[in-house]
């Protein structure tokens, strides 16, 4: 059973402490929405989970299925089933989305079994097309250079396509719904919804209620000042929709906004 446990996580960027004792456990089959004002450390959490070298964990632990991933490289974490859908994915000019995905799939398969010869082109194409159908993407998309000249909506869709292809066990979606118009949001949210399974745990970083309507998270957390300050169910998100974050600021006056 998939399980990630984030325990008392403190993370610095440079000299500045951004995460200040973050705790969360996510099991397979669960969707956790992570909300909160800008600058409270949501993206920092995403990057720290993935192991970005500039995000220094100064205290705490992250366990994936009971095993600490703190000493693992970024790529090893990915091969173990961690996935981050980036808010701002970078472009890799000259590398087609399809080539990239095939390499990523093969890297993962090879890590599991060094004898693995990789996925055949025929099978890969079949798989890719089935996932593109899921996200209502034009097949020609696969021949475009990764994120190079993609519109905001295309980038987000490409992120979800990668998630669909790589079949992670824990996925962190960092504002995958931001910058999308209503139609694109529906397609992306619908796509992610279809990927939900008992073996996938999702951490959904979002500002918007709409994404939650599709994903129907069992848990909603409010992050403020580098830690979770409130947890609840769908009603918590509705409260935020109606009242904004002012009541959080009032309730936790001592928690200074960070990074």
């Amino acid at each position, binding site marked *: 059973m998939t399980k990630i446990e984030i325990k008392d996580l403190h993370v610095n960027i440079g000299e500045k402490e951004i995460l200040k004792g973050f705790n969360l456990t996510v099991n397979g089959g669960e969707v956790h929405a992570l909300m909160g004002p800008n600058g409270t450390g949501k993206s920092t959490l995403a990057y720290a989970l*993935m*192991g*970005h*070298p*500039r995000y220094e964990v100064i205290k705490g632990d992250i366990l994936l299925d009971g095993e600490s991933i703190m000493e693992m*490289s*970024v*790529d090893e*974490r*990915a*091969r173990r089933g961690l*996935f*981050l859908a*980036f808010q701002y*994915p*970078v472009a*890799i*000019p*000259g*590398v087609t989305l399809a080539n*990239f995905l095939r*390499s*990523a799939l093969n*890297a*993962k398969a090879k*890590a599991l079994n060094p004898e693995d010869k990789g996925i055949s082109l025929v099978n890969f194409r079949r798989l890719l097309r089935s996932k593109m159908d899921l996200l209502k993407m034009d097949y020609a998309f696969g021949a475009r*250079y*990764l994120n190079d000249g993609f519109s905001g909506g295309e980038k987000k869709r490409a992120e979800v396509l*990668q998630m669909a292809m*790589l079949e992670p066990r824990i996925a962190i979606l960092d504002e995958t719904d931001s910058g999308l118009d209503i139609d694109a949001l529906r397609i992306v949210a619908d796509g992610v919804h279809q990927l939900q399974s008992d073996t996938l745990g999702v951490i959904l970083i979002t500002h918007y209620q709409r994404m939650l309507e599709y994903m129907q998270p069992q848990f909603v957390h409010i992050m403020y000042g580098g830690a979770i300050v409130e947890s609840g169910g769908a009603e918590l998100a509705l409260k935020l929709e109606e009242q904004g974050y002012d009541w959080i600021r009032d309730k936790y006056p001592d928690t200074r906004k960070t990074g």
Partner: protein
Amino acid sequence: MSDQKNQDFLNELGADYQYGFSDPDIASFRPEKGLTREIVKQISAFKEEPEWMLNLRLKAYEHYINRPMPGWGPDLSDLDLDNIYYYVRPPEVNQKSWDDVPDTIKNTFDKLGIPEAEQKFLAGVGAQYDSEMVYHSIQENLEKQGVVFLSIENGLKEYPELFREHFGTVVPYQDNKFSALNTAVWSGGSFVYVPKGVKVDLPLQAYFRLNNPNLGQFERSLIIADEGSQVHYVEGCTAPIYSEDSLHSGVIEIVVKKNARVRYSTIQNWSTNVYNLVTQRAVVYENGTMEWVDANLGSKVTMKYPSCYLRGEGAHGEVLSVAFAGPGQVQDAGSKMIHFVPNTSSKITSKSISRGNGRSSYRGLVRVANNVDKANSSVVCDALLLDPESGSDTYPTIDIRSSDVNIGHEASVSRIGEEQLFYLNSRGLTDEEATTMIVSGFIEPLVKELPMEYAIEMNRLIQLQMIGSVG
């Protein structure tokens, strides 16, 4: 990366990429090291050449002896020109059929995968083994169309007038020290003639291979594309590894007549002890198009500036080049575009990658002659540095002697970004896989211009170059 890991990687790529092999020395004639007038005469005599060629060789020899080493560009002070064999001939020459090729030579070709490649889609093969053509075949439909694809020696024998009319006109021996040297001692290379209006669909391909230590290889090719014709010539080079420095100094001359179109593609992968000093030039007449596609991966020092002399209105010249300088390598590559007449256009796209303490430079010249109006030229140079030790330089010279011209120049230098690496890592790719992918993407504009098998080879060579590139 450990030697064992290296070896595993090579095994994985296939035995054809283990360039360390070297066949027993089967060369039948080898003069002394160094170059004398007598050796030039011997070479000419061996080839049973007409007197004009002997005289030209001797004049070129005199010029070579008297001409100083180039005073610009990369350091050539370690190049000992007296410690090189200037002519080596294998025992069998110019086999027409694969069955006639000696087994040792065949084994080498097997390792390079040539027969297989030929079966698939080679239009014609001229493979250079040491200094002579040993194997040459051309498909029947080409012969029927009147396309000539011969060793340079047979070109001289069989088409003496056509040969003499063009040889040395595009790159005269006085051009530079190494064109003089090549003219004095040239041996091997291709002679291509495409008649008027004939379009050769499949690329003509030649493989070059050095197999002797200290062997100077001085191939000379002459390609003539008559009016309205089209041809793509592909040259791929590999060389086994030796400890002593070797010299490769080729001259390629191309004549692109009215409305003709020629593309010349090179993948240069000399072992990293070879000095690769090459002169490649095309003369382009009215509405003709010349395209150089040039990849320089190997060698110790490469100096190579494929050029187009645009001599007819509407002529277009293009260079797409990639240079990869690994540890200890210097790639000094670029292009020359000379606009002699109005309404001519040129385009240079140069991409360089440097790693270790490798150094790759773009050295280019765009010249628009006096009173030449409506010339267009664009130059784009992109350099990618893989680590702090590597370097890149740009030496663009733009010499415009006319007012009504449109010239653009852009240059960029980038490093592989932490964010790009992180992004690819986050999808499960190791640093090395991620870096290789970024590099492959960087050179993709060139690779996609290559015939498929070369594109695959190019990607494998890049993978090889990247071994051990990361921590």
